[in-house]
């Protein structure tokens, strides 16, 4: 393994982000920092009712307020928002409104305070409709209907539901079991809560729309906008250079981009539409809540023989994404069946948040396996190691799978064998516990594109469509280009995130950037290297195939003393352009990054407070292209898991249907104070299908974190908390029983 790494010049090192300087000096220009001449500010008015028909809108008072330039609503701006609802037509303003927070109108004014004041002057008559907040209630036949066919989001195509998956012979599997266990686990809606509030700046120039978006994908944002505004792609430009986080809720184009665009059209002025933090918590989406009913058959030694999962997930008023649960993915299950019902309710939309279908269902499944290990008198380490996945859906091999090594190395680092004790046996008020769980995320390469321009002085521009949402993708692309091209990293300039300039990118979501765009960067580098070698062949009087390029030197492979600096090769070439569109696919194999996490906690049995005293995250992500941001991502994923485990929940008041804590303080995201040092271990074996052997990094770390902590709490207390978040009151209550 070490030998493989030595072959690389740039890959696999610890390299600060190439745009770190801009990020630490305040020079990085985020969407909200953009000021255009004559720009207006916009704000959004939202429904105070969970379900209501709008029977009248009077905007006259708002329009009379000095400084107000336009008010748009469903009556004068019926713009479809395709990515906002995959199963029913959704508009940027809907009638009826279907949850507290559904957008009703938007105002553009000369400053944001005036726009905000104007919201209060819009008079709306609502006719209240019956509503339902709970997913199980919503499935009852007499529940108020949110969608015409009922509240089970039956969907279509990729979004068909119920989501059903099965293999093997379930009945036989349960017959083979020595013991069969059944239980239910519950998780709540949590918000992505990225630091940068949603913001969009739109302007029109002679029929061409430019949107400075805060998006995770400029290409798919452009596609969405062009479709919904009925424009050719050439008349839409989407730009996102610096982006302040999204974790899945800034994929594609969203209603705020559309509202800014329509207000800019109506006023004939550029418009900046800003979400408040409250808008951000209720107006877009968070992670779907779930109720997971498991039936698990095991042998006496803990080996799983069958798993049945029946679940409902709360996707809120509109179906934006799958509503699936995939936490069973990391276990070898010979006989399996799951039925997941995504359900509509009159609540905030539940959709993508970092590893959308995973941390909530890993919490359920890995908690239950940990419980079963306890019932059978088996050490959880043995239970997880025994049942870790070997083949995808029990049949397809993986491109690479070092989950076993993750478990071994992680358990060694935390000292599992010395520290594990039987659950609930510790004396004293503060009890020590240790826990673990398995996780990961699919790795599937796909469509990517890149352009590399080599300048006459031997420096190069890399053009990629990717936005950098904080993963360090821009730096990773530069590293791949430097490695593949054979020039030093500091000779590469990256231009990214501008659909008028940069080529297609899939979008920075689903941990896809390196897997999709990475191969295209390599192919573009190969394309331009051929051109370089053709020029150098004449200069060195050898055949092009005999040449190599490394560290900015073109040389004869068989005799490196015959060499010539790149700038001398290309100085009269004007500009060489390498380009590639690639679409690698996996055939008869499945790709996945894997992880095993371990935590030690101290539970204060007087207060119910839990402190994480040690956290170890062992990851198989193939070759790590750049250690520094890769480790940061692992650490950050764990911290988000900590919030989900202990505190975070968007609470909807049962009586008023109003989300009562749509802000950082009350939704309780983790701070510096409760974050432990997260120790990261990379089990590095190159994956045969990944660019330079790399798999995916961004999403895996959040997947096992919640279950790991929950299992450590069980080990400390001997009490199983089956509902997130695991707050002190739940712990105290459990300890009393």
């Amino acid at each position, binding site marked *: 393994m070490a030998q493989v790494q030595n072959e690389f010049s740039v890959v696999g090192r610890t390299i600060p982000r190439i745009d770190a300087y801009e990020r*630490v*000096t305040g020079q990085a220009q985020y969407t909200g920092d953009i000021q255009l001449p004559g720009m207006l500010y916009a704000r959004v008015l939202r429904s105070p009712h969970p379900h209501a028909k709008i029977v009248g809108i009077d905007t006259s008072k708002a329009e009379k307020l000095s400084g107000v330039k336009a008010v748009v609503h469903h009556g004068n701006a019926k713009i479809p928002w395709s990515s906002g609802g995959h199963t029913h037509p959704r508009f940027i303003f809907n009638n009826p409104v279907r949850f507290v927070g559904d957008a009703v109108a938007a105002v553009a004014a000369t400053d944001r*305070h005036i726009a905000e004041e104007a919201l209060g002057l819009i008079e709306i008559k609502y006719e209240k409709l019956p509503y339902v907040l709970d997913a199980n209630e919503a499935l009852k036949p007499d529940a108020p209907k949110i969608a015409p066919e009922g509240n089970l989001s039956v969907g279509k195509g990729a979004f068909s539901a119920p989501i059903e998956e099965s293999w093997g012979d379930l009945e036989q599997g349960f017959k083979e079991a020595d013991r069969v266990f059944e239980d239910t686990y519950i998780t709540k809606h949590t918000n*992505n809560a990225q630091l940068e509030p949603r913001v969009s700046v739109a302007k029109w120039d002679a029929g061409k729309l430019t949107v400075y978006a805060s998006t995770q994908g400029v290409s798919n944002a452009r596609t969405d906008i062009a479709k919904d505004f009925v424009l050719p792609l050439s008349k839409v430009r989407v730009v996102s250079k610096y982006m302040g986080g999204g*974790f899945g809720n800034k994929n594609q184009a969203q209603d705020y981009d559309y509202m800014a665009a329509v207000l800019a059209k109506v006023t004939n002025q550029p418009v900046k539409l800003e979400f408040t933090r409250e808008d951000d918590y209720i107006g877009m989406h968070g992670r779907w809540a779930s109720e997971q009913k498991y039936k698990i058959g095991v042998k006496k030694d803990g080996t799983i023989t069958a798993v049945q999962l029946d679940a409902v997930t709360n996707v809120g008023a509109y179906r934006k994404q799958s509503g699936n649960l995939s936490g069973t993915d990391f276990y070898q299950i010979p006989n399996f069946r799951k039925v997941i019902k995504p359900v509509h309710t009159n609540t905030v939309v539940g959709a993508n948040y970092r590893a959308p279908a995973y941390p909530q269902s890993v919490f359920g499944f890995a908690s239950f396996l940990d419980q079963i290990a306890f019932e059978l008198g088996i050490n959880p380490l043995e239970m997880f190691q025994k049942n870790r996945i070997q083949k995808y859906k029990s049949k397809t091999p993986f491109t690479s799978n070092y989950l076993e090594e993750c478990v071994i190395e992680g358990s060694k680092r935390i000292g599992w064998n010395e520290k594990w004790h039987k659950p609930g046996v510790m004396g004293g008020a503060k009890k020590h516990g240790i826990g673990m769980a398995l996780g990961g995320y699919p790795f599937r390469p796909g469509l990517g594109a890149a352009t590399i321009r080599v300048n006459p002085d031997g420096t190069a521009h890399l053009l990629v469509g990717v936005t950098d949402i904080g993963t*360090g993708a821009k730096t990773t692309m530069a590293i791949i280009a430097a490695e593949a091209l054979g020039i030093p990293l500091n000779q590469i300039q990256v231009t990214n995130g501008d659909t008028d300039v940069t080529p297609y990118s899939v979008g920075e979501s689903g941990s896809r950037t390196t897997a999709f765009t990475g191969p295209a960067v390599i192919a573009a580098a190969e394309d331009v290297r051929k051109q370089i070698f053709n020029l150098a062949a004449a200069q060195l009087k050898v055949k092009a195939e005999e040449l190599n390029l490394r560290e900015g030197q073109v040389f004869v492979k068989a005799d490196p003393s015959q060499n010539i600096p790149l700038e001398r090769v290309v100085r009269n070439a004007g500009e060489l352009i390498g380009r590639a569109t690639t679409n690698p696919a996996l055939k008869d194999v499945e790709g996945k990054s894997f992880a095993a996490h371990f935590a030690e906690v101290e539970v204060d049995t007087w207060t119910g407070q839990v402190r994480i005293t040690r956290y170890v995250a062992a990851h198989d992500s193939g070759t790590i292209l750049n250690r520094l941001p890769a480790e940061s991502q692992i*650490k950050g994923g764990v911290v988000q898991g900590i919030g989900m485990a202990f505190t975070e929940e968007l609470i909807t008041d049962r009586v008023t249907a109003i989300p009562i804590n749509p*802000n950082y303080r009350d939704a*309780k995201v983790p701070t510096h*104070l409760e974050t432990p040092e997260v120790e990261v271990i990379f089990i590095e074996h190159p994956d045969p299908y990944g660019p330079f052997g790399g798999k995916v990094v961004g999403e895996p770390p959040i997947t096992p974190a919640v279950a790991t902590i929950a299992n450590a709490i069980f080990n400390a207390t001997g009490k199983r908390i089956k509902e997130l978040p695991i707050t002190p009151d739940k712990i105290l209550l459990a300890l009393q029983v």
Partner: protein
Amino acid sequence: MEDEKRGKAISRRGFLKGIGGGAIGTAVISTGLLNSSSAEAYAPESVGGTRSKATVTLKVNGKSYRVEVEHRDTLAEVLRDQLGLTGTKIGCDRGECGACTVIVNGRNLYSCSQLTVWMQGKDILTIEGLAKGDKLDPVQEAFIEHDGPQCGFCTSGQIMSGKALLLKNAKPTEAQARRALSGNLCRCGNYNREVAAVLAAASKAS
């Protein structure tokens, strides 16, 4: 009508009174970032309607700026929109996240929770004023080396709180650094890195 409008504007700023409640676990915004005492220092004699204006001289990063502001304009808004100093970010606009942290008279403060009219004569330092010419501040350098920014949106605030700490305490312990930064949220969860960077800057400077 005029009164009604003013009422709305004041309620928008209700956070000055309204912030409360504990954050997660034992975390409380503890670093004095919400300095409401300066409210008393400002005599509101020129308050008229919602859009009443005042002229304020701001000293930012060593330079003086004369700006005309509405009474309701926060320091964060004026820094960003009028002075073009957009390194100071607005993450929540309600004194919770710390993305807007600047240093005023040597103390880190949430600039979203300070009215600009309170800033007359005060010494304001923003992220743009940290570097001396081409030479970055040690905290900035350490943030580069230790991968302090992921998405980078909270980074200015983290750096300013780190800087404010080091101004008072050149050799903080890890616990002190965490506490000093605890009013700055990072949803990328890069807390390990940010604390490590501040500690590295401290040890480098000594």
